[in-house]
């Protein structure tokens, strides 16, 4: 199992949804940590445990953006199979991500409503016809 934690792999102070509005945003977390961690777990056929505890707290938009992008790039089925969310301090987050974020972003993925990025990111992974493809999939949205 691959284990990551927002506190030790990203920041004690997670921000808001997009890089344009805050440091340590959900967008940043996804592109700098989560996307690659999932890709590694997927290729090793391992689970990915994401620990949300012990940070200073979250805005729902941070988590929605990070885990939503995961579903968009790797599909709901794969994310549900591989990702284990740990949120003992605030169990609500696990519930929100699994019951709302996953479903909403899977709908976005099916409808082809691409995610917004608000700064330039280096290449990231996306599953295309079950093949892992790395490229810059989106260009910054001007806010």
């Amino acid at each position, binding site marked *: 199992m691959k284990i990551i934690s927002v506190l030790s792999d990203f920041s004690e*102070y997670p*921000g*808001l949804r997009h890089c344009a*509005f*805050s*440091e340590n945003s959900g967008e940043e977390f996804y592109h700098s940590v989560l996307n690659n961690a999932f890709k590694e777990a997927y290729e090793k056929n391992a689970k990915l445990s994401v620990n949300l505890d012990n940070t*200073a*707290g*979250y*805005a*729902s*938009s941070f988590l929605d953006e990070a885990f939503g992008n995961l579903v968009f790039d790797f599909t709901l089925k794969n994310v549900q199979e591989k990702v284990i969310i740990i949120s003992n*301090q*605030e*169990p*609500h987050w696990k519930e*929100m991500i699994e019951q709302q974020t996953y479903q909403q972003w899977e709908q976005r993925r099916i409808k082809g409503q691409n995610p917004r990025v608000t700064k330039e990111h280096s290449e990231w992974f996306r599953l295309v016809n079950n093949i892992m493809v790395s490229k810059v999939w989106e260009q910054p949205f001007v806010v």
Partner: protein
Amino acid sequence: MGTTFCCVNIEVSDWISIAGIFINSALAIWIVKKIQNRLTNKRVLKDHFIAEIKEIRDEYRCFLNDLYASKKTASVIIPWFKLMNIKTNDVLELINVKYEIDKTILSPYQNNLRELITENKDFIENYNKNCPIVFSEISKTQIIKFQQDNNHLFNEIIVKINDEN
């Protein structure tokens, strides 16, 4: 077969009756004391939980008053919600076990209010500035409406605790 006590002849059956009276009295006193203690314990526990709920309500009120008065920066708002949620969850968990009151009853305060604030335009635009957030009149109205719609929840919990046997 009786004994003489103060010029009164008391039969064995009388002694048995007298003993019965003493035993019954002692038993009655013991039961009353036991029930009294139990009721007192229940009351003390209820008062304790009611006080905890009132404290949570007051902390939310105080926090929202500070928001209206533009006294809070974004950097303290999210951690405040986290700490309040942990505290509220602890109390609600115990109340749920003891009185079977729904532990998600304060979910509007724990989740919807946080979402209302952190998704607010004024909050997002001022997030990076690290200065107190000045909410627009429209935002303030939304927050006031939230309070009006949900303030009753605290009283509901207090009534439910109080009504429990």
